[in-house]
């Protein structure tokens, strides 16, 4: 009863319009403060941007490598080269025989003519090929195992089985390096995660320290606000919004940095891909990634500011 009376005496009711007004005012006044010392703010934001861009860039790299590996997954196939003596008919027979097998998903037949055509198209030997009297290329069957993650041992057995057929000259699988490649991308993925965690901590510290300096520079002002009855929340609010702005602008700068870097790499990557007869193109950041990076950065900004303010409000007592 007594506490209730006291509460009424202080008239501390919640008024939404005023609450909104205060927050809006703090939001823009903190933005104004960043703007009033552009060089210092910009340098802090650039540091934040780079710290956020590093794991983000690595994430993008891993993403692209994984897409590349996905393209090669269909390359987890076995090339069966038939003997020169084996003709069209033998090829068709083997194709049908293999397609009937349960552990095989698909078999594609590449005739010598098709092979020659592809060879002519994708290599620089077109004029040299003109000189050939007849087509030296054999029939090839591309065999796709049903189980894409077929173990190395099973694959070896399967290859030997194929080579034991009289019409088969050679059976080749090029899976191992795809596996190694995937192994490397997994390491990079983990590295990106570790880097992201470490640099999140860095972002937290950078923003926390910036806000700490800001608080020290405004000690007198905070003292006077306390004097005239400013609550801790009132004092904390502009600093939290400042942390918000640092997080927002820092992440936007990071995304811009990644965008520019990707743009710079796009042409050389496409060129390299063309050399490998691939139409691979560097893919950018997904929208969900962009938004989560912005969201996480803003949260880190507010958290960093909150830690700094909490520490200092506790320390600061009025004289």
């Amino acid at each position, binding site marked *: 009863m007594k506490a209730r009376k006291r509460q009424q005496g*202080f008239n501390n009711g919640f008024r939404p319009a*005023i609450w909104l007004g205060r927050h809006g005012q703090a939001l823009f006044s903190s933005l104004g403060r960043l703007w009033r010392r552009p060089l210092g703010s910009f340098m802090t934001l650039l540091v934040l941007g780079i710290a956020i861009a590093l794991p983000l860039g690595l994430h993008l790299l891993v993403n692209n490598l994984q897409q590349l590996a996905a393209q090669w997954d269909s390359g987890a196939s076995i090339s069966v080269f038939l003997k020169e003596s084996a003709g069209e008919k033998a090829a068709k027979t083997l194709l049908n025989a293999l397609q009937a097998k349960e552990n095989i998903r698909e078999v594609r037949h590449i005739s010598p003519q098709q092979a020659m055509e592809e060879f002519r198209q994708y290599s620089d030997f077109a004029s040299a090929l003109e000189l050939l009297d007849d087509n030296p290329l054999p029939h090839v069957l591309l065999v796709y195992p049903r189980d894409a993650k077929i173990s190395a041992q099973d694959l070896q057995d399967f290859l030997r089985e194929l080579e034991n057929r009289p019409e088969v000259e050679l059976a080749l699988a090029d899976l191992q390096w795809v596996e190694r490649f995937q192994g490397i991308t997994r390491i990079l993925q983990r590295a990106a995660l570790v880097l992201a965690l470490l640099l999140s901590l860095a972002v937290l510290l950078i923003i926390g320290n910036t806000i700490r300096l800001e608080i020290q520079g405004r000690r*007198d002002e905070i003292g*006077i*606000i306390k*004097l005239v*009855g*400013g*609550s801790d929340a*009132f004092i904390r609010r502009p600093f939290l919004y400042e942390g918000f702005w640092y997080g927002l602008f820092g992440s936007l700068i990071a995304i811009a940095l990644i965008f520019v870097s990707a743009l710079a790499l796009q042409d050389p990557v496409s060129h390299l891909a063309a050399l490998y007869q691939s139409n691979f193109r560097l893919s950018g950041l997904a929208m969900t990634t962009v938004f989560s990076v912005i969201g996480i950065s803003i949260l880190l900004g507010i958290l960093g500011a909150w830690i700094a303010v909490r520490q200092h409000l506790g320390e600061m007592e009025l004289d």
Partner: protein
Amino acid sequence: MIRFDNVSKSYPGSDGGLREISLHIPPGEMVFLTGHSGAGKSTLLKLVGLLERSSRGQLWVNKHNLSRLKPAEIPLLRRQVGMIFQDHRLLADRTVFDNVALPLVVAGLGRQEIRRRTQAALDKVGLLKKARVLPVTLSGGEQQRVGIARAVVSKPPVVLADEPTGNLDPELSREIMQLFQEFNQVGVTLLIASHDLALVETMQKRILTLEQGRLLRDSHNSESA
């Protein structure tokens, strides 16, 4: 309005502070607090304004027992007590208007209300024309009046002043005292610390004299006795 009940305040490793002060200031009274420097005038005001907390004893301000106040309630009580300092304590990078409006902004008043009340307070101290300038461009007396406007803008029931005329010449000091008297006439309780005995005595108000942290004399009591 203000009641001290055996209040003591001691500072570690120091003889200063207050010793067993008991006194009562009813609502609407204007009281002067005198004594040598170091007698405890500022400490007493700081306890009332909750800038510091007493070591022992009970202290009531506007029916609130200060030693029972929760931390979140401290700012709310400070809003009921206007404070004026010898060194003004103004924000140098804000205009006179913004300085005076600060208690209203802090209390969360609407924009219109803030403008209306701030202009009224500035008008009262005769500085309406200087609302848009920075405090540094003002004279000492004007800065003190800005501080006074800030202390009364939210119409607090209690106003404390610590040596408000300390740096002012007698003419300006009398003007400031005149202002205080006007506030008192509309029911504000005032507690003013000053070592300027001559000026204090011309006001013919209750005078509390402190010496070495003790209440040496209370003119109110001696009259009634």
